[in-house]
């Protein structure tokens, strides 16, 4: 670490030593002296607009703004002198001249910087007798945010966030002078994956979330700090509960290591499912094709009996899928119980991802920021782990890193982010900057061949950091806990069991007697899903997979249980049950279910402390003996196979608000969920004569990569398609996407009503083109 030059500054009589160049407003924090700010933000630096951070500095005739004053040695600062107080008072009075003072109905009331500073530094009355300028009170900015123009203090934090942090530049300042307002282009919806952050950045009640508007006052909320488990990033967040319901979540500003102080919209907004009426509240058993509610004791008996009987005949006919959505402790005990019964068919992999731990060269998210080159292969983290994408953007926007995406069918990055899209590995190597020092590889964990050959081709001498932004929040933890067909906890060698694909293959042949699925929805995400003779599913909702099961167990969600989770970079993070959150009476956490099952199966469990210690021991060090694309993860071959001539190859893509579980059962965010869509390159669209907003169907021409698509239309995943003789995917909204490779059509995966999973990698033809009605064309014209 470089030795930084320290300078001494005196603030209100207290001396403090800080590194040279520190902003005065930060130096003051060190002696717990708050200097009020509106426009300044630690992550975005000074803007110098709000003028409320005025301080008196000896030797300077005018008051200075503390946000843009770098401390110098011997500087003597007064924040509370008459002159400074008077300046601040005057500025605050100006803020209130046209402020509506509607604090009684303002969501921000109680945690509003304008309220607080007016209280602390204001004069308590106004000399203004003129009526206040009235402005629109509820401007609909987009699907998530509402703007109250009267309350806006034009600090531009939100605008700068969109510019400096996200790089989308959707939110801008319009007009001039006193008429300055926050707006989007032509009133188009404000929509990207990080919009919710502006409500936290807003120092007043101008920008509010639709999900939280008029829901609560901050002092009525009960707050718990936990880890977001919507994706493997592992952002720390506050969960605020009132009347037993999650009202909102908020970021931790000092979570520099992981979230960098931001949350993505999925993590922030997809919290309304806990009290959804669709929630399973009791164990359900399918008797003669009809669901009946049963008690827990009966449910556990049915489950344990099935396992015991199958194990007696052949433990290889028993399988377990799950772990990526469980806590570390749950995953550990899960494999413990089943391994005790001789079962080796354990696999967390329920979707397309094959590997979760990058092994060697695992880097932190802060390290990612320091890379000069970032290579994105497979599906980009933009929709899988948006906060990782935000770090990529930060590296590019603020530190000039070069972002290279290989064979990406994703939307291009917005213009301010320097990024290159290339078609092949060779082109990517060519696009590398001269003598890269630190290269990061961000991979989706799907195509092992691609990852391996990229690693081989990278120039020697560069430090290489590897990241896997996967599908499930605790996939890395589940791997380390031994939810793998080839490894015990800590990647210890184990007698090899069936992988997920092998389990479904066995099921298809009638050789899988009992399959237990925990927090996973393979029927929605995999083409090869097949029913076992007896299937048990633990989930919060009747997912596609649960519907096809024999026994469904009502589980608890992440805010309803306690434990730890492991994020994609290997940090072990706390999962804390939210205080006063109401849980359905009969729902059990997976841990509770596993413990109860162990009792029924007469499996002895280690003591709680022992579990904790064991879990931590296995997670403490990253495995060094493998890297990206390691063979033992069993990657299917030929993922890069090209489609037939004249056909389109299907790429299935994640969208943060597409899914069959918590997203599908959250009424608050219903309008954020995407419609089934097909993205085409502009060239292909022109050839086909389709444009954005039209509708098309897709008809498969041959098999997908995950297995034979045709000839198996009876699987659950293709239930919708099976109604059709021709197995056609219907009614897809066309998006013409620049930068798409030609001959590719991108579908949104995880939509229960449009099972694109069966089409992944398939060759298809585009048929039945229908023109958009005028109005729809307008509505979908804007990039989401």
């Amino acid at each position, binding site marked *: 670490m470089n030795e930084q030059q320290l300078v001494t500054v005196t603030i209100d009589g207290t001396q403090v030593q800080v590194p040279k160049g520190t902003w005065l407003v930060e130096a003051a924090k060190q002696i717990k002296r708050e200097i009020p700010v509106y426009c300044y933000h630690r992550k975005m630096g000074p803007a110098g607009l*709000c003028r409320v951070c005025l301080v008196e500095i000896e030797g300077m005739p005018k*008051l200075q703004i503390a946000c843009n004053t770098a401390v110098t040695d011997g500087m003597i600062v007064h924040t509370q002198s008459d002159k400074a107080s008077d300046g601040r008072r005057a*500025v605050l009075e100006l803020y209130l001249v046209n402020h509506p003072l509607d604090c009684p109905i303002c969501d921000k009331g109680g945690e509003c910087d304008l309220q607080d500073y007016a209280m602390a530094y204001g004069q308590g009355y106004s000399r*203004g*007798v003129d009526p206040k300028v009235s402005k629109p009170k509820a401007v609909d900015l987009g699907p998530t945010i509402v703007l109250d123009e009267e309350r806006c*203090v*034009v600090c531009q934090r939100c605008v700068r966030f969109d510019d400096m942090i996200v790089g989308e530049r959707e939110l801008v300042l319009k007009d*001039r*002078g006193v008429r*300055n307002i926050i707006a989007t282009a032509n009133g188009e919806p404000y929509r990207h994956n990080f919009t919710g952050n502006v409500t936290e950045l807003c120092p007043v009640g101008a920008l509010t979330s639709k999900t939280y508007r008029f829901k609560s006052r901050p002092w009525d909320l009960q707050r718990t700090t936990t880890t977001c488990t919507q994706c493997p990033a592992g952002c720390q967040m506050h969960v605020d509960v009132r009347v037993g319901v999650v009202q909102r979540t908020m970021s931790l500003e000092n979570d520099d290591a992981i979230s960098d102080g931001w949350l993505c919209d999925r993590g922030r907004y997809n919290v309304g499912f806990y009290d959804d009426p669709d929630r399973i509240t009791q164990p359900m058993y399918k008797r003669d094709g009809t669901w009946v509610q049963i008690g827990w004791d009966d449910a556990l008996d049915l489950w344990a009996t099935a396992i015991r009987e199958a194990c007696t005949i052949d433990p290889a006919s028993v399988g377990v899928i799950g772990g990526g959505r469980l806590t570390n402790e749950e995953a550990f005990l899960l494999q413990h119980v089943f391994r005790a019964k001789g079962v080796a068919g354990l696999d967390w992999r329920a979707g397309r991802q094959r590997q979760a731990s990058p092994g060697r060269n695992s880097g932190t998210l802060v390290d990612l920021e320091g890379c000069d080159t970032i290579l994105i292969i497979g599906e980009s983290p933009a929709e899988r782990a948006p906060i990782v994408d935000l770090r990529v953007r930060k590296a590019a926007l603020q530190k000039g890193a070069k972002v290279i995406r290989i064979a990406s069918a994703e939307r291009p990055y917005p213009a301010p982010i320097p990024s290159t899209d290339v078609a092949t590995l060779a082109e990517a190597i060519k696009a590398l900057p001269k003598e890269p020092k630190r290269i990061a590889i961000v991979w989706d964990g799907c195509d092992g061949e691609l990852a391996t050959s990229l690693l081989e081709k990278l120039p020697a001498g560069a430090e290489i950091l590897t990241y896997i932004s996967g599908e499930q929040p605790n996939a890395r933890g589940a791997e380390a806990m031994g939810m793998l067909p080839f490894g015990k906890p800590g990647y210890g060698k184990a007698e090899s069991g069936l992988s997920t694909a092998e389990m479904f293959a066995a099921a298809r042949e009638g050789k899988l007697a009992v399959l237990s699925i925990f927090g996973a929805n393979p029927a929605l995400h995999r083409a090869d899903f097949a029913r076992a003779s007896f299937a048990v599913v633990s989930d919060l909702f009747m997912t596609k997979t649960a519907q096809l099961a024999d026994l469904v167990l009502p589980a608890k969600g992440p805010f309803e249980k306690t434990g730890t989770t492991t994020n994609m970079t290997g940090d072990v993070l706390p999962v804390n049950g939210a205080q006063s959150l109401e849980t359905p009476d009969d729902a059990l956490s997976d841990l509770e279910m596993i413990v109860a099952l162990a009792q029924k199966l007469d499996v002895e469990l280690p003591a709680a402390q022992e579990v904790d210690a064991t879990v931590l021991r296995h997670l403490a060090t990253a495995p060094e003996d493998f890297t990206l694309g390691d063979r033992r993860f069993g990657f299917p071959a030929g993922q890069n196979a090209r489609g037939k001539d004249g056909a389109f190859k299907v790429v299935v893509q994640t969208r943060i608000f597409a899914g069959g579980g918590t997203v599908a059962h959250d009424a608050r965010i219903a309008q954020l969920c995407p419609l089934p869509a097909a993205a085409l390159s502009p060239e292909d669209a022109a050839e086909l004569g389709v444009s954005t907003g039209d509708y098309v169907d897709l008809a498969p021409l041959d098999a997908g990569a995950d297995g034979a698509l045709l000839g198996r239309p009876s699987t659950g995943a293709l239930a919708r398609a099976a109604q059709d003789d021709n197995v056609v995917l219907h009614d897809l909204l066309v998006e013409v996407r620049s930068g798409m490779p030609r001959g590719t059509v991108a579908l949104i995966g995880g939509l229960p009503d449009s099972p694109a999973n069966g089409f992944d990698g398939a060759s298809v033809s585009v048929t039945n083109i229908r023109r958009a009605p005028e109005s729809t064309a307008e509505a979908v014209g804007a990039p989401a």
Partner: protein
Amino acid sequence: MPVVKVLTAGIGEADLRDIKVYRDRGGYTQLKRAFTEMKPADVQALSDKSGLRGRGGAGFPTGKKWSFLPPDVRPRYLVCNCDEAEPGTFKDRMLLEETPHQVIEGILLGAYAIESHHAFIYIRGEFKRGYEIFMEALAQARKAGFVGKNLFGSGFDLELTVHRGAGAYICGEETALLNSLEGKRGEPRLKPPFPALQGLYSKPTVVNNVETLAYLIPILERGPEWFSSVGTERSKGYKIISISGHVQKPGNYEVALGTPVRELIEIAGGLRPGRKLMAIQPGGGSSACIFEEQLDLPYDYESLQKAGTMLGSGAIVVMDDTTDFVRAAFNLVRFFAHESCGQCTPCREGGHWLERVLHRFLENRGLTSDIEMLARVSHEITGINLCPLGDSIEPFLASVLKRFPEQFEARVARETVRA
């Protein structure tokens, strides 16, 4: 006669827009001389020696401004500020429309002096005619080989790009001008860094006024001593003064700095018969008024500053006893409120508040307390803004509030309050 003809020479007599006419009168000879006989440093030294100060408003010594450029960072840019919009100022427009070649020559000399190979002129959006005239002149100059590659065989390339504004007074502020030139909103930048270090495209940049650059030509021609021999100790040389308002012959007059204000008003034909002088705004809309008893003040930077006002852009607005000072105050406050970019709070909110209160006075709805409030709020918003615009509201308002309180009091709604 105190009126001189240096930059204004030939205006109204010859068609100086024609490059031939301009050259016949000696135009572009100094440019050639500079490129063929002088080093950039020599030009810099001459201007430094002449004591030339910025003619746009701030009056900052030009040579000193140039000296802030870091010696080893390239490219450098010269930007000529022709965004003249200070109320009462109309000298740059005259230079632009009447002697465009003089403007071009001045810019080229300035660019050569600071070794800039790409100069810009930012022309106020409203000056459409001036823009067309300038473009025409630039085409002539380019054809004559005065703009472009390898000028006069010196090996020095110099490009001049004309950039038209689109209606924003604040773009006269140099960092706002640079933002506007970069295709952004004309919002002033947070300083530091200053343009000399990080200006246009974050490269070292100098922004000079049209008149400032044009004076380089006679300074080169007649020597820095000629320029510094007139004026006062620290306000050297000549300046074009725009005189308007209640005078009989409003117009631009080129005079030596230090000429008493009384003489300037006489030059402009004096007041209309039978009228009494009430106030003079001596340096554009941002300056405080001076009054009858101060008529003998020498018109230079220091004397006016000492008198609590400023010379600014050299725009004198004369007001006689027909003036409604409440209306005048409203007029200027409204101007600043209208032109505020709205970035920082005191200027945005304060200006608007004062405008509304003064508007109420115009409707005879003032409160007694408003009078003190106007003075205090306008003072409170001064000195705490990001750029000088917010600080421009107070001077005129405060000076007329103090001088003519009865005009304000007459518009207080006394009867309503007493009820």
